[in-house]
């Protein structure tokens, strides 16, 4: 599946297998000037490298962790939330699904057994995504299970679920296991990939052929852009098989390199989508706030701190909202930060400072408003903008800490 990452020399900073050496920079030929040459260079970067692979890995780890933690936390409540005991009965769910056409495999069989299977598959998929195990397959299972559970009752979710939902789709298209993953540490392609590929192909064929899947695995869709789910799943499956085959037959040939370049391009587009999504979150949150009278009069922060559903610690909330000046400053700073964020991307240093402040604000929201899943999902999404240097530094520190704990040389 993710054969390419195994071919590349393993670069895992901070892990004991290999000491981080100076990065291998391919020799850059002296480039001619002019717009055509510039376009050529842009194309070279677009096809030649998976940009931001450390950021992609952190986003992958972040969302795997958030969804895994959520599923484990809700494990005792799973049947009421998404299963056979839900007040949003399967009959109600199907009436809404017939209307909006959202993707979920849960109505296929309906019963408890099928639900338990999907829920626990979701746990395994989240764990595999977190660890970066067979990521080409596990991100797809992650997508299927996240959408299946969330679309079973769309009325349950909040902003955090919404971010996880979107990222579950986008992550499928990234090469997010190039670093800091089990895939990157594997030597040689291994056997499990082929087995997994065959199993998933068979499972997909059964679902496609069986009547139970209804209209969820169609090739076309009635509305624009007229693409169903079948082309995506079969396409990914076919590409994975083709990739493996070329690796066996002509590992040094150009077709294999073309596939590699295509994967880079898809990755780079997906990373652009993820980054833009984060910008849109902050930009809309900020721009709509500018119009709000409470944000204008500087008391906005006070109100969420006095909503019963978002005050797990009323004394703490009361304290934070107790005085005029801090409430005013935090309210105004929040709007300023969110509105400014897209523009700070043009300056690395300012961007990094703002990012740190936003992450801190989200950690504050996690505790004070009792929204840990939402906040951690936002922090994971923010991570796409973290500088590579900071990520490598953090990884090295973690690696050192791990070595000290494990006691390895």
């Amino acid at each position: 599946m993710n054969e390419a990452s195994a071919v590349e020399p393993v670069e895992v900073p901070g892990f004991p297998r290999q000491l981080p050496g100076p990065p291998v920079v391919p020799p850059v030929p002296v480039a001619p000037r002019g717009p055509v040459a510039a376009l050529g260079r842009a194309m070279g970067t677009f096809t030649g490298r998976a940009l931001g692979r450390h950021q992609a890995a952190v986003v992958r780890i972040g969302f795997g962790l958030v969804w895994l933690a959520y599923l484990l936390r809700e494990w005792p409540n799973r049947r009421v939330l998404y299963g056979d005991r839900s007040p949003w009965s399967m009959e109600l769910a199907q009436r809404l699904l017939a209307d909006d056409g959202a993707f979920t495999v849960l109505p296929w069989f309906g019963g408890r057994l099928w639900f338990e299977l999907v829920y626990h598959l979701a746990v395994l998929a989240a764990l595999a995504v977190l660890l970066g195990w067979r990521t080409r397959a596990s991100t797809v299972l992650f997508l299927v299970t996240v959408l299946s559970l969330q679309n079973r009752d769309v009325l349950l979710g909040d902003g955090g679920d919404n971010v996880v939902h979107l990222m579950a789709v986008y992550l499928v298209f990234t090469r997010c296991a190039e670093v800091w993953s089990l895939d990157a540490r594997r030597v040689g392609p291994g056997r499990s990939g082929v087995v997994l590929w065959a199993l998933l192909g068979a499972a997909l064929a059964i679902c496609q052929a069986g009547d139970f899947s209804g209209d969820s695995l169609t090739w076309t869709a009635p509305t624009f852009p007229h693409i169903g789910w079948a082309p995506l799943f079969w396409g990914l499956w076919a590409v994975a098989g083709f990739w493996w085959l070329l690796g066996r037959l002509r590992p040094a040939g150009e077709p294999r390199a073309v596939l590699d370049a295509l994967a880079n391009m898809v990755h780079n587009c997906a990373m652009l989508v993820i980054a833009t999504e984060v910008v849109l979150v902050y930009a809309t949150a900020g721009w709509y706030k500018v119009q709000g009278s409470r944000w204008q009069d500087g008391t906005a922060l006070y109100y969420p701190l006095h909503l019963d559903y978002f005050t797990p610690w009323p004394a703490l909330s009361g304290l934070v909202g107790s005085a005029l000046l801090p409430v005013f400053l935090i309210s105004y700073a929040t709007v300023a930060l969110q509105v400014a964020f897209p523009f700070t991307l043009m300056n690395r240093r300012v961007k990094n400072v703002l990012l740190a402040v936003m992450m801190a604000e989200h950690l504050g929201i996690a505790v004070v408003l009792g929204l840990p899943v939402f906040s951690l999902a936002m922090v994971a999404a923010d991570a796409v903008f973290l500088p590579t240097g900071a990520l490598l530094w953090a990884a090295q520190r973690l690696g050192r800490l791990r070595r000290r704990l494990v006691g390895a040389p």
Partner: protein
Amino acid sequence: MTGTTDRAAPGRVWSGPAQLVLGLAAAVLVSGTGLFLAAVFLHVAPDNVLSRQYRDEVDGVVYPEFEQNWKLFAPNPLQQNVSLDARVRTVADGGATRTRDWIGLTARDIAAIRGNPAPSHVDQNLLRRAWDFYDGSHDPQDEKPTSSRGRLAEQYLKRIALQRIGREVGGERVLEIEFRVTTATVPPPSWSGETGPSAPKVRELPWWPVGDEDYRGLG
């Protein structure tokens, strides 16, 4: 990195057919990504001339899987505490009915959230958002559904309450259920100089009959 490896490197020299494939793929990917992001942008932006012009296309791309709403605490943060109570009418074996006391459904949610570092969606979102769904699909004057989803919202709300109340109250079978919604505006901070809000508003929903089928699957 030369032409003999299987990796695409920035300086690599491609053959003609490879250039064609990569060029076409780049064109498709770049334009596809651009159009997708444009659709998402028009979806989250305020209603405008462009999004009205391309409403069907934008909705087609965004719904159902890319729907999003980032008006978090905007334009104004929510300033109301909405709390739901329910009471039931029960019937004894002899046929005598009795109206029971109000049960604080929201109060139970709040009690579960207090002191909990990771509140469950069952306590924080289930009832709260079910009420939003009902409220958004009903006319507050006569409690009649204003959209086709209104009936779904009624069923949902009823089943959430019944799951928490059970089939029997005080040993008698539940016959009917009624909801009461109290909306209290959060009083402005003392240092803001604003006057306090008006008294909480109470809205009572009609009695709804409860049948065996309403309990299906509730456990």
